[in-house]
């Protein structure tokens, strides 16, 4: 108890609420070993009965010092490390890092590489959203969607495995393009996947979208306004569900996203249900992008001309991409040597997690679980 109160300094622990029935406040430690905290998140809850009076996130249980490691590796050597941050969307992480260094080196990946990057990244977005849906539904108590989404995510992982040999920490991209040419039948596999998955998404929606209990559990839960989102720096589906049409793929197109026609789904209420709908619609939009890209992958090289030893000029660069969870940014400072002077990652999960306290204050314990699920955090990325 005393250990927990140490963290609660900002929760105005002083005098308990003088209600009609003098109730004691309860301080509960949720995590780091808890079935619904998505890894090793530790949340200290201050409760009045079941009502949440305040929360405090304690993070760092998965801290591996990724940013520090970067300072002791060459630019190329650091590339696989970024995959271990958001391990369910490793491809996006790699894309952000590679593009940041490319910008720093002032080189551009060839169009073919960019198309392959887009296809793989969007497939990864689907995989990430599927995992989110399964775990989020499980947190709210629906067991079955978890198994459905894992079954279908497997198809994506199979494509990754065929492409680069790895399923999760793919290390698919290199600075200047892609390491691997598409394998024989890559396009056919992706086309088959495009045919396979829409009915499956319908299946998830059938289980949840109009389910009364699901509606009651998610509507009006974890409300956050667009203003608060922007003030806290919250990005990704959470921001879009609050009604802000902000997607870096459209706002500052990278790779070859400007070639494709897709929509940015937004919500109005900024509650858990809207975030659910936004992500479900995003999955369909991702399919649309893949469909457009896979048909016309241009011929040509997959790697730009990149020197053997990377020595970017002195300078700094910030490059961000739209990862499945929000804006994933890399701030890289070069001192002209082979190793970066500093790499700072702007992880979407870490920034989005800030909103937790705001979203659950005054709600019930069960809503904390729903909100942690809807924020879609990955602790590898929060702690780095």
């Amino acid at each position, binding site marked *: 108890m005393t250990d927990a109160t140490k963290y609660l300094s900002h929760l105005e622990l002083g005098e308990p609420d003088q209600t009609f029935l003098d109730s004691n406040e309860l301080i509960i430690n949720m995590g780091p070993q808890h079935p619904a905290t998505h890894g090793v998140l530790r949340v200290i809850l201050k409760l009045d009965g079941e009502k949440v009076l305040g929360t405090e996130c304690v993070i760092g249980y998965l801290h591996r010092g990724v940013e520090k490691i970067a300072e002791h590796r060459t630019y190329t050597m650091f590339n696989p490390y970024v995959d271990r941050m958001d391990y369910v969307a490793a491809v996006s992480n790699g894309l952000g890092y590679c593009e940041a260094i490319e910008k720093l080196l002032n080189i551009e990946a060839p169009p073919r590489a960019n198309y392959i990057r887009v296809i793989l990244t969007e497939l990864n977005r689907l995989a990430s959203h599927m995992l989110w849906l399964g775990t989020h539904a499980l*947190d709210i*108590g629906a067991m079955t969607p978890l*198994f459905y989404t894992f079954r279908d995510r497997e198809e994506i992982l199979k494509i990754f495995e065929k492409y680069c040999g790895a399923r999760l920490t793919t290390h698919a991209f290199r600075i200047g393009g892609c390491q691997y040419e598409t394998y024989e039948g890559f396009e056919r596999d992706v086309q088959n996947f495009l045919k396979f998955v829409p009915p499956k998404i319908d299946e998830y929606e059938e289980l949840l979208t109009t*389910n009364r*209990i699901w509606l009651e559990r998610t509507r009006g839960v974890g409300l956050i306004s667009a203003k608060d989102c922007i003030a806290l720096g919250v990005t990704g589906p959470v921001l879009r569900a609050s009604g802000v049409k902000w997607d870096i793929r459209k706002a500052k197109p990278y790779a070859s996203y400007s070639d494709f026609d897709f929509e940015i789904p937004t919500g109005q209420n900024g509650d858990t249900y809207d975030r659910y709908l936004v992500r479900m619609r995003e999955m369909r939009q991702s399919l649309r992008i893949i469909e457009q890209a896979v048909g016309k992958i241009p011929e040509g090289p997959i790697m730009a001309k990149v020197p053997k030893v990377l020595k970017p000029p002195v300078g700094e660069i910030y490059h961000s991409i739209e990862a499945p969870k929000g804006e994933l940014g890399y701030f890289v400072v070069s001192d002209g040597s082979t190793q970066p002077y500093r790499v700072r990652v702007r992880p979407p999960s870490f920034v989005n997690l800030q909103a937790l306290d705001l979203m659950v204050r005054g709600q019930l314990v069960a809503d904390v679980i729903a909100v942690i699920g809807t924020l879609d955090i990955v602790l590898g990325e929060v702690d780095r």
Partner: protein
Amino acid sequence: MLDYIQGYLSSNLTPGQAGNVFWVTVYILIVFGGISVAVIAMNWLERKALAHFQVRLGPMRVGPHGLLQPIADAIKLLTKEDIIPSGADTFVFWIAPLIILCAAFTVYIVVPFGPTHAITDLNIGILFMLGVASLSVLGIVMAGWASNSHYPLIGALRSSAQMVSYEVAMGMAVVSAILMTSLHGLGMYGVAAKSTGTGTLSMIEIVKMQQEQQVWFLFKFFPLGLIAFAIFAIAMVAETNRAPFDLPEAESELTAGFHTEYSGLRWSLFMLGEYAAMIAVSSIAVTLWLGGWMRPFPHWLAGETWDLVFSLFPGLTFLGLAAIAFIGVARMPKHPYFKIQTAGLGGFGAVLGLIGVVLFVPLVRDRIQDIYWFAAKVAVFMYLYIWYRATWPRYRFDQLMKVGWKVLLPIAIGVLILTAILGVVL
């Protein structure tokens, strides 16, 4: 002595009513054993059915198709270290699972598996059942309190609030069914009623009334009986803390709710109690609304031929199960490694088939009829429990209370009043 034992067989009463201690003991042992076996079977079936809902295989390793999994689990739970948290109230912690277990099993004293197949028949049977079944909340609160830990405490408080509030709606629905027992007259609307004004609370009498009025109370005063039944069916899921009302043990919120600190044998007692309670409330529903031990259409499809046809069902069911087992044998991998498993499944199928054949013997057939139909109806509810769990998310606590007090209770009272009015009018 022998006369004492044999005398009962011709008495046409339940052993409790006949006051025959020997047969009471035998019946208690049979019921206790039967329910235990049913719980074990339910455990396996739930894991298997749930797995198939979720594109998984479920238990496959221990025995053919995981048939021995419950036994392996039981051995594991029995041999586990017995942990009592240092801050726990040892005595209360120790006694809580026993209370739940006793409450769940005591209910079976009045469950009528057949006109004479009950341990006893109380004239306040249904009242006794509801009363004893609701005692289990005591065990839950004790378990949550004695654990001296936050999660169990919250789970216990949730549970007590939930069970107490759903009992009200449940009781109202039950009362409307009891009211129907006094409203004589044939068929759904009791046309040409000759209301005697004397209903009954005895479980056996309730079923006999349905037989006399030639209608399941589910269909009586359509749709009033149906609504009352629906309320009961919802409330009984909440009463037994099962999905989507499994808040007290909400895994993703409270890790395991009131039994978070329990392990090994004590934990398994909780599970045993939970499943036994599920079967118990299902049997209340079957008794009150689904005609208890009566076979389908006892009046519409009456006559000796139909009696014979329906009396073949128990045997056929077991032969069907045996057939499934034999199909499983045929589909087993033909690898030497699977030899024992294949033989085991074949043996299991053979035993099932043998039971099926025995059930065709006229003497056994007539004796087992009512028990079979009762069990079949309860089994439907058991399947529904699994189905709910696979389909629905979990309610939040305040929503659960809202459903209980603002939806179910007013409807239940409305149904009760309407039933009473119909009884007066007709």
